[in-house]
């Protein structure tokens, strides 16, 4: 009988712990991080991919970008507002310039989140080999602005933060 009582108390405590844990998690922040990580994962390519794979990757990236996304990355001489429908063209341009490319987001942090707006920072570690087989790796401190549109966090801006000012 005593054992049963203890078991019930333990179960109640466990359930309370689980509920507390569940309530303490910032689900929106998790969704933003997940969105950015998956976007970085899809910004990856290597020679020998089939066209179906390429098309699906491009569509995936396109689906995570807002109708207009301001991209300012001085390290790559990119300063432009990218329209959602132009994403495939830019991705194909990038593919022709770099034989392979991978992006890994490190130190991803949510700086502020007030639904429907969010701001995140991360260090993007870009490993790339250009068309002439030259390594062109870069570490960039990036700032992302996202907006929640129809239950999805979409990237509205990606800007390089100036760590070293010349």
């Amino acid at each position, binding site marked *: 009988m005593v054992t049963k009582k203890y078991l019930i108390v333990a179960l109640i405590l466990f359930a309370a712990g689980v509920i507390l844990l569940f309530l303490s998690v910032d689900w929106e922040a998790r969704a933003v991080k997940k969105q950015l990580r998956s976007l970085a994962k899809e910004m990856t390519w290597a020679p020998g991919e089939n066209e179906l794979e390429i098309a699906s990757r491009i569509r995936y990236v396109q689906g995570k970008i807002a109708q207009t996304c301001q991209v300012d990355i001085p390290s790559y001489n990119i300063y432009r507002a990218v329209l959602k429908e132009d994403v495939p063209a830019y991705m194909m341009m990038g593919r022709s310039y770099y034989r392979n490319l991978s992006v890994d987001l*490190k*130190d991803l*942090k949510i700086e502020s989140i007030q639904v429907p707006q969010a701001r995140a920072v991360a*260090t993007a*570690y870009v490993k790339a080999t250009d068309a002439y087989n030259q390594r062109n790796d870069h*570490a*960039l401190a990036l700032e992302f602005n996202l907006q929640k549109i129809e239950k999805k966090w979409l990237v509205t801006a990606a800007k390089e933060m100036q760590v*070293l*000012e*010349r």
Partner: protein
Amino acid sequence: MTDSAIKKFFFPQITKRYLLRVAVVAIIAFIIFKFVFIPFRIQGESMAPNYVTGSFNFCFALRYVFSKPAPSDVVLVRMAGQNVMLLKRVVATEGQSVEFREGNLFVDGKKVNEPYVADKSDWNIPPTVVKPGYVYVVGDNRSMPAKGHAFGQTPVTRIAGAPLW
């Protein structure tokens, strides 16, 4: 050391006291390697030949608690966090003017002797005055064109520490 002592050292009896000792050691190690001596691996050639790619080191995070970075100090500059940092050398501090002429470094108009630079460059960078609260950092490897090298002034608050060796 007897056989039983060796056996006891490698396969100790799991007692409450032993578990407590393991927990204390683990917590102290975590604090030391997370906040004081942060391990890192060098990737890139910007500090060659003094720090080569693939080598291992520790960032001593308390290096600038009681002092400020000074010229010729090697420092780690934080990017978005502490997982990826830039390893650079401080060449000038706030208020000083920095200039490169035919690959030679000039601080406040005076040529600086840089024994740590192996290959001379042809860099020509117009004078820049370092802003208050900033330091000017540059890599030791000047054999690459200035365009492909990350250097410039950064806030002192971005400096995470200095390499241990």
